[in-house]
């Protein structure tokens, strides 16, 4: 079990949900992430950029099925997974009234 550690970067609701989805299934396609969260392209890109700037996620572009366009794949890094687990542990501690 991780030590609870509140993380300001992950705390934003959309970023927390992005990390939650990627902790469940990674790597994930950008469009799947956007559709699952029901947010706009711009919003999704903005939050992913913030997470990538902190090395919590990695972004990679790979050719699509018909090679005509590139698909962005998003993966949670080890650092991101650790930060997410610690943040969730902190949330649980708050809910339990231990903080």
């Amino acid at each position: 079990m991780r030590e609870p550690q509140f993380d300001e970067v992950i705390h934003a609701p959309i970023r927390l949900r992005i990390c939650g989805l990627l902790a469940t299934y990674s790597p994930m396609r950008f469009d799947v992430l956007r559709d699952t969260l029901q947010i706009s392209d711009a919003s999704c890109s903005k939050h992913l950029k913030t997470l990538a700037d902190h090395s919590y996620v990695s972004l990679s572009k790979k050719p699509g099925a018909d090679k005509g366009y590139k698909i962005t794949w998003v993966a949670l890094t080890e650092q991101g997974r650790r930060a997410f687990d610690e943040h969730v542990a902190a949330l649980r501690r708050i809910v339990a009234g231990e903080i």
Partner: protein
Amino acid sequence: MDEHIQTSQHMLDTLSSDHARLMARTRMPRFYAVGIGILAGVLDVMWWVIGTAFAGGSLFGLHTTALLIIALIINTVCLLGSAAIILAVRRIRGVGFWSLDRTQYVPRSARQRLLHGIVVSALLLAIMLGSAALCLLLGFRLASFLWIPPVAIIAGALTAVVQQAGITLSERQTVMEDPS
């Protein structure tokens, strides 16, 4: 303080809800493992039927080994045909990356698809070659049609079990562990 607790609880609930929705999309259809098992069983029956039909014969003056190779080629063609049917069903049902319109299930990466393809192909190939080895071991003259159903059922059931174990394992790997 109460507000913090409520906000934190709401976030945990949202994570849980997202997790459940995503898991519902990563699950393979229930028929999948059973379908692959039945396919392996049917292909196995075909191998035995073709093999025993050719055994002992001297069709066009060909040697038995040549006939067995022909049987193997016919079965391989059937296997490829079955693979095409599976792909078509997957495409129509919206399974996988090569599906019509928007995929119903979460698309897997190229690496995950490759690994899955290798495992399924190796499994089917092992069943085919295992069956062939058993045929040769028993000798076609001894291998009456009585052998066909039990061997095919065992091969099919084994394939379904292994396939389902693979699906369960991959699903378990994606399940977010509860930190508490």
